[in-house]
């Protein structure tokens, strides 16, 4: 049992950061699961054909950004419901991945790679990248004008309008970034494993959403939340080999915990009225 299960932690963290960017901009990205899968395949294919690791990451980022921009186009320009459009993307990408894999290799199975990913001083490089992204997210989102405007766009488009600013461009950027990070997470997943396996994302795109809310939508708490989730996954993997103890319990607990956290924060928010000075109360009734 590792203290920090890097291989489990890194993809999830990166994907969750992707979710964070989009959520902060006011457009939750539900398509992360599909984007992770697509990123995984893109990375593996690139390594397979070019042997270049860095290039594979860039390819994954690019493709992920493309899917994010596609989502943005549908949502912002065509007026589609962001949730439904993302759902559609989530259905489409795995099919596309399956098709590409089949066309190129004649089967839907595993694509194996040669080398193992690089490690520096006992810490996988990928993890360091993820850590760097966490720092960057914190910095960009909370300490730059761009991040400020993004957060303003996500919480009050009216505020932006009153300052003469639009929100579409920022949301588009957020979705593109979100898709890129989701794909990068998938790339890390596949490259660490050393292969592309159908369904490799295994619900991590959805877990990322859990991690987002458990991590209170801020980068460092998100890191902590992803760590907790990685521990539980690790624990459940270990338990599965022991087979007396129900590993599912361990896996289900973080989501339950997140529900509690989410409900608690909702209840707390309910008590504060928005700043118009009028209370939101529904009027009490005695029955």
């Amino acid at each position: 049992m590792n203290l920090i299960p890097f291989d489990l932690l890194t993809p999830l963290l990166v994907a969750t950061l992707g979710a964070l960017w989009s959520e902060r901009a006011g457009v939750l990205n539900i398509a992360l699961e599909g984007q992770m899968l697509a990123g995984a395949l893109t990375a593996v294919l690139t390594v397979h054909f070019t042997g270049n690791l860095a290039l594979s990451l860039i390819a994954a980022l690019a493709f992920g950004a493309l899917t994010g921009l596609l989502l943005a186009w549908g949502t912002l320009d065509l007026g589609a419901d962001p949730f439904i459009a993302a759902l559609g993307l989530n259905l489409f990408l795995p099919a596309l991945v399956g098709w590409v894999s089949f066309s190129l290799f004649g089967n839907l199975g595993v694509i194996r790679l040669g080398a193992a990913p690089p490690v520096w001083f006992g810490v996988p490089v990928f993890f360091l990248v993820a850590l760097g992204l966490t720092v960057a997210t914190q910095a960009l989102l909370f300490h730059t004008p761009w991040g400020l405007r993004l957060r303003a766009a996500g919480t009050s488009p009216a505020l932006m309008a009153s300052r003469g600013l639009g929100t579409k461009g920022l949301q588009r950027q957020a979705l593109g970034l979100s898709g890129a990070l989701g794909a990068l997470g998938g790339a890390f997943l596949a490259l660490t494993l050393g292969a592309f396996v159908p369904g490799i994302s295994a619900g991590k795109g959805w877990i990322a959403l859990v991690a987002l809310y458990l991590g209170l939508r801020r980068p460092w708490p998100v890191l902590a939340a992803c760590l907790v989730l990685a521990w539980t996954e690790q624990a459940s993997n270990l338990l599965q080999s022991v087979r007396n103890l129900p590993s599912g319990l361990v896996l289900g607990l973080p989501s339950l915990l997140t529900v509690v956290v989410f409900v608690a924060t909702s209840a707390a928010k309910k008590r504060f009225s928005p700043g118009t000075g009028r209370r939101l109360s529904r009027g009490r009734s005695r029955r």
Partner: protein
Amino acid sequence: MKPRSNPLTSGVGTLVALGLALILAVLLLAMLSPNPAGALRAFFWGPLSSGLAWGNLLNQGLLLTLTGLAASLAFGAGSFNLGGEGQTYTGGLAALAAALVLPVAWGPGGTLVALTAGIAAGMTLGGLSGWLKVRFDADEMITTFLLSASAVPLVDAVMTGPGIGAAESMLIQSRPAPEAFWLPGLLTPSNFHVGVLVALPLVVLFGILVNHTPWGYRLRLMGRNRDFARYAGISTGFYALVPLALSGGLHGLAGALGVLGTQHALVQGFSAGWGWNGIAVALIARTNPWAVVPAAFLLAFLDQASRTVVLQGQFPFQLSALFQAAILFFITARIVLPRFGDRRKA
């Protein structure tokens, strides 16, 4: 942040969207298949070509009817139920557990009890989210999703555990339910069975309830304008909780039917994607129970058709996912809420 779109596209818009998606599919088939004629024939005729095909089509259509009904009920009342998968899975577990525990002598009565257990399990999950919404103002879109996400691994754990887990098997699944409780199959060896037919009277029931009763009127008003509903004296708590509970219950029923009718055991992950399918059906049907049946069968047909095409080697990859994606995309791109002017005071 919340995508609170109103699923009120115009009827024409929906048809256009479906038409576009179909045209796209046909084009793809024609262009990419090694044998376009064969592909098209497999596509349109395949699902109807044999008893087995019919059976699977009917089974899937009716199951989608159930989940579509579930999603429509929640949607129509202004709530989002994203927990369909977990509710279905838990319903399946509850039904199986009941089947394993009840005395075999109960026969069909036992089946009914097991089905009820499935409904109750789903209702509990859905109702819990409803309660959290009323009591804590917690967004049900997220709580249904999270509760479902926690339920799935928990069910996985329980179903492989002592007393329930299968001794040895290729798939990860539970012990089979006693044969006395199985729902008789139809058009064997397809997935079709008697149980799913219950979807039809349920459609009628909810069709009448939602469209022709005071209760349904209030429910639909909640979906159209919650502030108005509250102003008019409608109990917003009741109409937030009950639709979610009912929605969960229907999903649970679908799960129970899947277990007792088709697989006769709880198979891991059998409910994957069932929630999203239901939502897609609800969108096409614009949350009207009457329209759920044609919408469900349309999607079922498309799914079976694309499966046939792939199985027969006439097309390299899964079309059905593309369809659903295209349909969803086109449909929501049509959603434009009517603008009713600036509501400003001078």
